[in-house]
Each structure stands twice: as C-alpha cells, then as structure tokens.
C-alpha cells in the first residue's frame, strides 16, 4: 500500500490526508514533526531530498507537491472522482489549486507563524536548521525564528488573501462548491488552507462578511473524510500547526 508522510492535518498535509480518505485509498501514514525538524533527518531526506511534506511513496514513485499530489491520487486510484467533468469547471478547480499555493499558503502561513509558532524558538535557531536543503528556505526559517519579517510582503500578501476570500464568497454564493456544482480537489485544498482563517483573520472571514464561506466551512468540517484526516493530529489543535510556508511569489 502507498505510504503518506505527513505532519499535522493542516495545509498540504491536510489536503493529502483528506484526498486519500475521500478516495477510499488504503494507505500507511508516517507522521513527520516539522517543528522538531524531523523532515531534515536522514530517514526522511532519503524519501524526499527536498525535506518537505506531504509526500506519497507509491511503489516506484515518490509523489511530492500538494497540488500535483492530490491530482495524482485522483487519477491513479479508483473511488469517487474529485475532478469535475466539464472543462470550465476543471479550469476553475485548477485555478483554485494554483491560488492555494501562490496566494493562500504564503499569507496564511505568515499569519499562523506569528500567532502560533513565533514564541517557540526564543529567537534561537535549532542546530537542525543547517540541514534544510534549499539555501533560500533555510534563510527564511532563520529569519522567521529571529523575528525578522518582510512586513511589506506580508501586507501585500494579506491583501491578495482577502481578495481571494472575496472571490470564494462570490463563487459559493452562486454554486455549492468552489469549482461549480461538483465537490472537487479545489474544496479539499482550499479548505486545508483556510480552515484556521476565521481565527487568524476574523475580520476577513466571519458569518456576517462571508456567510457562504462559513456555511461551506461547516459542510467541509462535517465530511467523514475531513474528520478522519483531523484524527491524525497529535496535538489536538491542527489549525495551530504552522511552519514556514511557500514563499510569497517574488516577482509578478
């Protein structure tokens, strides 16, 4: 059976877990504690030299990158389809997957880090940091631990996030799910990103400002696959688990 390496069911790890449960794929799970830097131990780097979760080890291939990973699971396994049939709805879905990575993940990670993670390191970088494979990522960890944030980038990122939340509200006022009338990978991946947002950015996501988004969040949280995914948490507070996210798109 395939093996999923994941951290707390938040962001990419949540997306991979929910997707596998929705498809009904039998899999083995291996918990990697990212704030304990288990992702840069030799045992894990042998699986993914990039030192990132989630990773699906499936026979002779190692599947990385959240968006491509969930699409792989949908295409490689039997089970209910998680991609709509109509080309326009498929385009909507893929646009959400792209925005999840480019707009949602960096901004939400920055908010989550400040709220939940910043206090954990006392400004002291752990020795394991030196093993983070990519120099730019290592540098971003070091700066975040030192409390050195790019305020301008975070502000611009937050404004993009708020714009995208508005787009979610518009879409969900029209259709039941983000890519139209069919539940899809867009719902899974965007839910995995925004699940903590009512708490992190309450002004932008609440029952008054975004009623359709809040109702959709409720439907998502009630899904058995989502509840199974959340049960993989070891902290009992997966929405508080934040490491360094993908970088804000550097240009353009």
């Amino acid at each position, binding site marked *: 059976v395939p093996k999923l390496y994941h951290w707390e069911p938040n962001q990419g790890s949540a997306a991979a877990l929910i997707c596998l449960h929705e498809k009904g794929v039998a899999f083995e799970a291996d918990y990697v504690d990212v704030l304990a830097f288990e992702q840069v131990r030799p045992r894990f780097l042998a699986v993914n030299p990039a030192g990132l979760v989630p990773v699906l080890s499936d026979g002779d*291939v190692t*599947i*990385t*990158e959240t*968006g*491509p*990973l969930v*699409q*792989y699971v949908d*295409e*490689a396994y039997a089970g209910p389809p998680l991609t709509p049939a109509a*080309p*326009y709805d*498929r*385009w909507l879905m*893929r*646009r959400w997957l*792209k925005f999840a*990575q*480019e707009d949602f993940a960096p901004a939400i990670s920055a908010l989550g880090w400040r709220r939940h993670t910043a206090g954990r390191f006392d400004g002291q970088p752990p020795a394991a940091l030196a093993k983070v494979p990519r*120099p*730019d990522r290592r540098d971003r960890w070091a700066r975040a631990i030192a409390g050195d944030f790019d305020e*301008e980038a975070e502000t*611009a990122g937050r*404004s*993009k996030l708020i*714009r995208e939340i508005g787009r979610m509200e518009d879409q969900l006022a029209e259709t039941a799910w983000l890519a139209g009338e069919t539940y899809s990978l867009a719902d899974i991946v965007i839910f995995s990103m925004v699940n903590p947002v009512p708490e992190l950015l309450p002004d932008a996501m609440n029952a008054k400002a975004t009623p359709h988004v809040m109702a959709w969040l409720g439907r998502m949280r009630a899904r058995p696959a989502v509840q199974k995914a959340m049960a993989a948490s070891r902290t009992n507070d997966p929405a508080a688990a934040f490491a360094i996210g*993908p*970088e804000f*798109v*550097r*240009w*353009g």
Partner: protein
Amino acid sequence: MAVELYFFQPLGTNSGRVYLTLLEKGVDFVRHELDGRAFDHFQPDYLAINPKGQVPSLVHDGRAITEGAPTMDYIDDAFEGPPLKPSDPKARWRMRCWAEYIDQDFGPAGMMLNWSNVVRPFMGERSRDEVEALLKRVPTDERRRAWKRAYERVVPEAELAESRRRNEVGAARMEAALATSPWLAGDDYSLADINMFNFFSWMPRFQPDLVNAEKTPHAMAWLDRMEARPAVQQMRAETTGRRTPPQTGAETT
C-alpha cells in the same frame, strides 16, 4: 463558438505558452494583440475581461479563461485535437510538477532578472508624473509594488543573486530530466514541454555559460526538437520577440 486570445506582441513567456498550446491543439482563434509598452493591459476594455490586468486571456463561449498553466490545461480539455497530457498518472504528475516549478520558482526568477535588465531602464525614461499616473492604473497591490520597485530600482543585489542561482538550478534540472527521457514528462510530448519552452528558449543566448552544447547537451537537443515542430515554427512566423526575454515584463503567470 469563437475563440479569442488577448496576448502581448512582442510575445512574452506567458502569452507564448498559451499561444503555442492553441497551435499544437490546432484551435482556430481570433488574435488580439496588446502592446505592453503602451499599457494596453491596463485599459478599461481589457480590465473588463481580466480585472487583474494580466496577459494572456482566452475568451471561449463568452467566458474569460485566465492564468497561464490552468488555461493550457483548459485548452487541452475543451478542444478536439492531439492530446497534450500523457495518459499515465505518473507522467501527468511530472507534467504538473513542471508547471508548479515554472510558476513558483523558475518563472519569477527570470522575470525579476528581466525587469532589472529591460523594464527598469524603460521605466527610468519616464517622468515621475507619467509613472505616478501609470501606477494608479495598475489594478492590484502586488503588481503596483512590482512596478514601483522597478521604477525606484530597489531590487537588492542579494535577490538578483538568488534569481541567478535559481536559473542555474533550472538549467541543471532540465539537463537531468532530458538526459533520461525525450520529453519533460517522459516519453510523450506534453504541456510541460510547451510550458518550459517558453521560459527556457532564451537561456542559450542570455545565459550561455549555463546552457550550451557542452554543459547541457540534452537540453540543447530538446530545444532543437522544439524549434523543428510545425507549431513552434508557426508561432515564430506569426509573432515577434520569442528569441529574447519578454520585452515588457508586464505579464505574470
């Protein structure tokens, strides 16, 4: 139903990848050229199609399809013609990883270098008033910030160095992939090749120390195979600027 494409002429990376996908698929489309240097993409008519003021936009059945890689996927899904996605899920996964890599890493790195080489001098010729007026028309905060940084010349050397490093990693990554299979996703020509071609074809000329016959022979041979394709030749014949980096840098993914 009519298919229309709004794209930059000279053709940039993002316009090029969608344009080439339409040609490979054999789609008949109406061509609407935008002039990036005249800021056509910030005119109200165009913003009505794409409120973010980004290029290209495909209009099909009266609906605007935007964002580079998702538009390419849409073209493959919506039209008859040769399939541009492999059938094997593992090969499809590789194809999608190239799209992610281009949008998040290789593309922005090239864009940053291009802005500092091309757009910055171009903006520098403009008066402060002209630039202020332009910035007011940019529809999104992040684009306004990019234009402002280009005008004020505030891209730190460390960031440019990081972009050059990513170019170097990209050249090595291309060579490694093409040493093991003829096309980027494996045995089949796919959207990954169309996508990367538009970001990589200028490398032998502008980064000759990174991409050349000795250092990256497989990537060079792939570029030759790409150039020989009828769709690429048609794109070359119909457009200008594909042998150089994008002229305005005003496109985004």
